[in-house]
């Protein structure tokens, strides 16, 4: 729906200050960024991570005692979906060299590299190949490849500053050093990056970057990358098989403690299948669909932390899950699009963030956690109370997209942001003329499974890459480093898993003993609630209808 009169009146205040703001921007006069020392107090007072009572310590498992969000702990303190004794492990339904769980950016990149290195690959995925957060990433992918003005040295510093200096140094080193080659790989596969005529990559700033190193494909960079590498995977049907709508629910180990496959659940026939594999790569992505603290999310439908749950039961520790990323700019109006991501690229291109008075209150390129906390402070009654009210009683602030037209020429918004242009046009809003109303929205799982720079976990033969892993982003990821993460570490995981199976082609006696032990541990710890996990899919169905679903067997055991 278009903006109602009440909001149109408020937009006039944005228009009143626009010309002067554009002038300042053109002269590189920026709203002052916060000093490093000023970030802490704002985060502690206004970032959702710091709200008391929203985290608790995990009672069991390899990271027992670690306090993370209640929603994630609920999944970890839960029993297996299926009685391990029921699964027939004597006859595998599928056999492969490398099993990849999750078919987003990391999984697909891993598949291509594993296949190139001679391994037969099976990808098992919950939804369709490519239905993943990678597809939804908009703004860009970082790599320090502008010779003479940028380098992995500065990329490293930016990442550490954004992540509060607690990132895993080896992982950061690996990511910044492999970044240019990842972009070169994508360029070679025919990814439509925005380029100058002479072939140089166009790059821009993101929050917390000191050099312009954000490569992009208009405002649908992730979709462009995902479509390209998915298409490439489909050129290797001799080596790569994909099973869709078949999420993994447990890992399978052998008697030497190595990972030897997984149990899949067929969402349509409700069967469980056993896949025997010499190595397994977990690339299941994030967990926005847990709606931590009831936040809306930008994440795709399947982002439910399945990989974390499976690997944790198999003994893989987790870290950096105590912080969650709220993207500063999610749609808050119109209601139908609520929570949808508005790329940081708008701010990278110069769009200001403004309160109800049409005034700036934050530098628009702060790291994401700081930017989000400042917006929440502006909106919340306990903060400054300068939020813009929506017709349904929520609050947001303006993101002034029309000023991009004045900074970079008429038609820029339509050309550089086609995805968002069409989204808002469907609701009768022209974002080249009217600003967008936004509020922070649950976006990214900063932490996850512990891996080393070869993507190995502590379980031999088990690898992880992308959002499911933790460490490279520390406590807060910068824009453009998640697409980079999935490309760099997806490729490494595929290469290393293919290498590993050359020396480890014998699988011992397979079992699900770790699952049985975990179920027992839950009993021993006195954990109540009879929860099961992984969640697989969120349930948004009407509670009134659910009450009458006396026998839900037509959907198997989904719930």
């Amino acid at each position, binding site marked *: 729906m278009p903006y109602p009169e009440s909001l149109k009146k408020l937009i006039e205040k944005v228009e009143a200050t626009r010309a002067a703001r554009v002038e300042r921007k053109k002269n590189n006069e920026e709203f002052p960024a916060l000093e490093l020392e000023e970030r802490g107090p704002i985060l502690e007072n206004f970032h959702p991570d710091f709200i008391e009572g929203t985290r608790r310590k995990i009672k069991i498992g390899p990271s027992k005692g670690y306090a993370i969000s209640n929603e994630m702990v609920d999944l970890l303190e839960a029993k297996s979906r299926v009685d391990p004794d029921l699964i027939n492990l004597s006859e595998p339904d599928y056999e492969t060299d490398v099993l990849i769980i999750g078919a987003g950016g990391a999984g697909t990149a891993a598949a291509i590299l594993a296949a190139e290195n001679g391994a037969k690959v099976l990808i098992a995925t919950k939804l369709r190949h490519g239905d993943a957060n990678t597809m939804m990433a908009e703004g860009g992918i970082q790599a320090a490849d502008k010779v003479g*003005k940028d380098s992995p040295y500065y990329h490293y510093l930016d990442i550490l500053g954004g992540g509060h200096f607690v990132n895993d140094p080896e992982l950061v080193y690996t990511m910044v050093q492999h970044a240019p080659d990842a972009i070169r790989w994508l360029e070679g596969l025919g990814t439509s990056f925005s380029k100058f005529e002479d072939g140089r990559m166009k790059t821009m700033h993101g929050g917390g970057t000191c050099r312009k190193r954000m490569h992009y494909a208009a405002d649908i960079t992730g979709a462009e990358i995902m479509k390209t590498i998915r298409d490439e995977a489909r050129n290797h049907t001799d080596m790569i098989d994909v099973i869709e709508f078949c999420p993994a629910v447990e890992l399978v180990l052998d008697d030497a403690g190595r990972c030897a496959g997984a149990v899949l659940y067929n969402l349509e026939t409700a069967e469980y299948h056993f896949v025997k594999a010499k190595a397994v790569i977990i690339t299941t992505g994030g967990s926005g669909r847990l709606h931590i603290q009831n936040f*809306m999310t930008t994440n795709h439908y399947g982002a439910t932390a399945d990989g974390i749950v499976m690997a944790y039961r198999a003994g893989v520790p987790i870290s950096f899950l105590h912080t969650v990323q709220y993207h500063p700019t999610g749609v808050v109006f119109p209601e*139908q699009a609520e929570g949808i991501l508005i790329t940081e690229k708008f701010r990278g291109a110069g769009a200001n963030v403004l309160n109800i008075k049409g005034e700036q209150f934050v530098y628009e390129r702060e790291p994401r956690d700081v930017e989000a906390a400042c917006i929440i402070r502006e909106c919340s009654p306990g903060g400054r109370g300068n939020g813009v009210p929506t017709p349904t009683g929520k609050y947001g602030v303006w993101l002034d997209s029309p000023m991009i037209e004045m900074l970079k020429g008429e038609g820029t918004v339509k050309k550089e942001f086609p995805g968002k242009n069409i989204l808002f046009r469907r609701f009768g809003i022209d974002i080249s003329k009217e600003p967008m109303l936004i509020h922070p929205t649950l976006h990214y799982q900063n932490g996850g499974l512990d891996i080393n720079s070869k993507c190995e976990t502590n379980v031999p033969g088990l690898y992880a890459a992308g959002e499911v892993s933790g460490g490279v982003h520390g406590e807060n990821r910068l824009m453009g480093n998640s697409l980079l993460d999935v490309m760099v570490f997806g490729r490494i995981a595929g290469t290393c898993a293919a290498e590993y199976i050359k020396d480890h082609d014998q699988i011992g006696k397979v079992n699900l003993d770790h699952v049985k032990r975990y179920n027992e541990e839950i009993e021993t710890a006195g954990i109540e609630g009879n929860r099961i996990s992984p969640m697989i899919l969120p349930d948004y169905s009407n509670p009134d209808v659910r009450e009458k679903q006396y026998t839900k067997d037509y959907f198997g055991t989904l719930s």
Partner: protein
Amino acid sequence: MTKPSEKPVDELVPIFFMGKRYDVPASLTIQKALEYAGYQHIRGCGCRGGVCGACGTVYRIPDSYKLQVGLACQTVVQPGMHLMILPYYPGNRSEFDIEELKGTGGEVAALYPEIFKCIGCNSCTQGCPMDIDVMHYMAQAIRGDIAGVAETSFDCIMCGLCASRCPAEEVQFNVAILARRLHARYGHPRAMHLKERVKEIENGKFEEPLRDLMSKSTEELKELYKSREGEPQFTEEDWTPQDARYV
């Protein structure tokens, strides 16, 4: 902020999902309306944000014979609409090795010879939920204009609705991605700075500065972080920093 499942409070309107009537709140998208009706989507639901192509939908409103299309996650319900979601379409795809191709229009025609069967009926364009002029890019493909196909089809989400409407059994979305890949790979010069930077990294140019950073204390890192020289927002591509030791 609320979860999508929380009950909205506006008037209910009837919709017919695969012929069956449900009364749903008038302001919801088709996707959320079906959840309100009690469905837990398995197929036909992906990003919920209009970019993945999982929820292409065909619908008709009362008293009209016209079939319309949209994405279930983006299209608001209309009273009396009849609809179905098309979660999959069995279109043909030709395998290729991008290294062996050269990026000519003839290569697209060789991999998808059926493009010449296009009868120009425009059903594909009318069937595109992204408002892409599909028939136009098919004409461009027939003419061998790869750059044109790449530009016209850039927003394609590969939902398959175009192919489902095509009387000539074209698989437009696979033709389009082939052309986009060929154009991106061969229609522009490669980025030489990338090649050069990869070489520098292979030769270990940044090894020592990075290892040095990795050994520093948090306090030292904070000082270096604070003193980074920022590339201005509005500056030419050839801007260079004053401190060129690490670039």
